[in-house]
């Protein structure tokens, strides 16, 4: 095992982590501010990917596709919030889970009805395709490198938005005491719609970005949704900082587990058994991490409410 391979895997873990963060940030905001469990967050990720693929194929520009993914997911998020989610804030979590699960089915079948069952074509833009050479002779895909940078920029932007702007103050106030800020004259319904649309836009943006590397198909959002839930549970529900740390932790543990565990078992088992035991354990690694975090800190690493 060379150090170049090790560094490449660290970058892979980081890239996976920042993309998870885009998903988890919206999920944790919606949960933190509105107390809503939104299973349909993965569907918004899919909406973003489909919008990006459609617009990119139609116009030939990946960047316009990316803009479309943001807009489409934000609009879908706002519409869903106004039509459905708004009625769920006062209900208990089971009702929210049922209703947003229904939304998953509606989005999936609707997408299949519009686009068919075959995956859509979406590729990395030419300017970002191929590998770049990093110091030390390491070849790394330029697109993944760009994803790391974009993810970090979004994280900084989100931090500034929450910490420095009036909207951010309202969001934080909404997290602490929603009755009080309503009493202070803030339009809480509008605030909720904005937060939901913001979360949706982040998910859709992630869908568009990751769609270029993966398969744009119906049901692509649900596996990511599960990971995003793991991230916010580890990071502490409602905390953006927790989502960032949690996402990078999950990205690292998952990537390094897949990479290191099989070779670890090869030290004392035969090759074939080692790979199957190692890869089975690797797919459990993030859940084991989650369990360990919950044992030590039951409210996650950075709980939003003390």
């Amino acid at each position, binding site marked *: 095992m060379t150090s170049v391979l090790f560094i490449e895997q660290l970058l*892979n873990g980081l*890239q996976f982590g920042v993309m998870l963060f885009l998903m988890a940030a919206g999920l944790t905001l919606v949960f933190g501010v509105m107390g809503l469990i939104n299973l349909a967050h993965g569907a918004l990720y899919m909406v973003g990917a489909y919008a990006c693929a459609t617009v990119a194929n139609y116009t030939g520009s990946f960047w316009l596709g990316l803009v479309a993914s943001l807009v489409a997911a934000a609009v879908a998020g706002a519409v869903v919030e106004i039509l459905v989610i708004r009625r769920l804030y006062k209900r208990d979590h089971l009702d929210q889970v049922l209703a947003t699960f229904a939304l998953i089915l509606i989005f999936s079948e609707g997408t299949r009805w519009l686009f068919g069952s075959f995956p*859509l*074509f979406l590729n990395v833009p030419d300017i970002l395709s*191929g590998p770049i050479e990093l110091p030390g002779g390491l070849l790394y895909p330029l697109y993944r490198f760009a994803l790391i940078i974009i993810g970090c920029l979004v994280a900084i932007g989100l931090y500034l938005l929450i910490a420095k702007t009036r909207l951010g103050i309202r969001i934080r106030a909404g997290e602490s005491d929603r009755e009080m800020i309503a009493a202070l004259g803030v339009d809480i319904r509008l605030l909720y719609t904005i937060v939901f649309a913001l979360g949706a836009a982040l998910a859709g943006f992630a869908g568009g970005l990751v769609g270029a590397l*993966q*398969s744009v198909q119906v049901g692509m959002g649900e*596996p990511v949704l599960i990971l995003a839930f793991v991230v916010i549970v580890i990071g502490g529900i409602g905390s953006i900082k927790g989502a960032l740390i949690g996402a990078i932790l999950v990205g690292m543990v998952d*990537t390094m587990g897949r990479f290191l565990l099989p070779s670890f078992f090869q030290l004392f088992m035969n*090759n074939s058994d080692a790979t199957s035991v190692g890869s089975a354990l690797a797919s459990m690694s993030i859940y084991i991490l989650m369990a360990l975090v919950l044992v030590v800190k039951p409210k996650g690493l950075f709980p939003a409410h003390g």
Partner: protein
Amino acid sequence: MVKINLLKAGLVGLSLCVAGTAMAKPVKVGMITTLSGGGSGLGIDVRDGFMLAVKQAGNKDLEVVIEDDARKPGLAVQIADKMIQSEKVDILTGIIWSNLAMAVVPSAVAQGKIYISPNAGPSQLAGKGCHPNYFNASFQNDNLPEAMGAYATKTGVKSTFIMAPNYPAGKDVLNGFKRFYKGKLSSEVYTKLGQTDYAAEIAQIRASKAESVFVFLPGGMGIAFMKQYAQSGVDIPVMGPAFSFDQGILKAVGPVAVGVKNTSHWSKDLKFPANKAFVESFQAEYGRLPSLYAVQGFDTASLILSAMKTADVKDTDAFRAAIKKADFDSPRGKLKFGNNQHLIQTIYVREVVKEGDIYTNKLEGIALENHQDAYASQCKM
């Protein structure tokens, strides 16, 4: 539920008027296949291929009932029970996935129904678990990777990095490859089923410095892998069974798959007259190129239709014998069943090319001629 009634009761009466000829016996086929959710492209192709043959034959005595299993074994079992108990079908077919086939087929054939597989070919049903009522019109799971292994050996590939999802079919495939590959395995990697990010595996491929990479990643997994592989700058050639490089997938992967060698029991440019006719009529009917799944559906229907010409489905022995004769010209040439009622067929090597605006496969050569699966000898038939 999609229900296609090709038989109207009145027509039975009509056939009674034809004196002297044998009375046509209606046959009811139940198709359980995946039409929604992940992997529905495969089921849709099987259904469309099947219905194309039915339409072309114009045989009013064949009735087909189609239901969607959504890739869920439990649902497939329920549908099979319903089709056997209340729909009273004579023949079952349609299942795409090996795990669903293992849940449905053994009990269906034990209840005296004939089952013809249009895709799944689990080793259990080819070897000790073979059954006189079970026919496989597609392939046995190990066949295509075996052919890829043989081809890699023949072309002198010295070291190969092999990878498949960690589930039974993935293991069958890697075992099939290893059975015929004589070079060195530089690494054997199992990924999570349904995995979408392969950065960690691609980094290992890069570090392995192998001469070639053999992957079995059907559906969306293959799309994700190929796109990421192209971005990584690793230039080790990729090969694999046709499942990862078939028509539906090529549409989504596009240029990055060009040049990939894959093994298949069918290719759209096979030189059989029946193949040319099939490809043209499929395109005319559905406006897209057929896949190997469509051919398997087409052949499954042709088997039933050909048997209906000479035998009555109520006489199971005679009907089975008629199916086994496979008296028709398939797009794959003349079909020949082995003792375990799986096909003995030639497996070809194809290469992904761009023809006009469409990415498709071009025939490259023969990997294994008249190949029979490795489990036939364990079948006591």
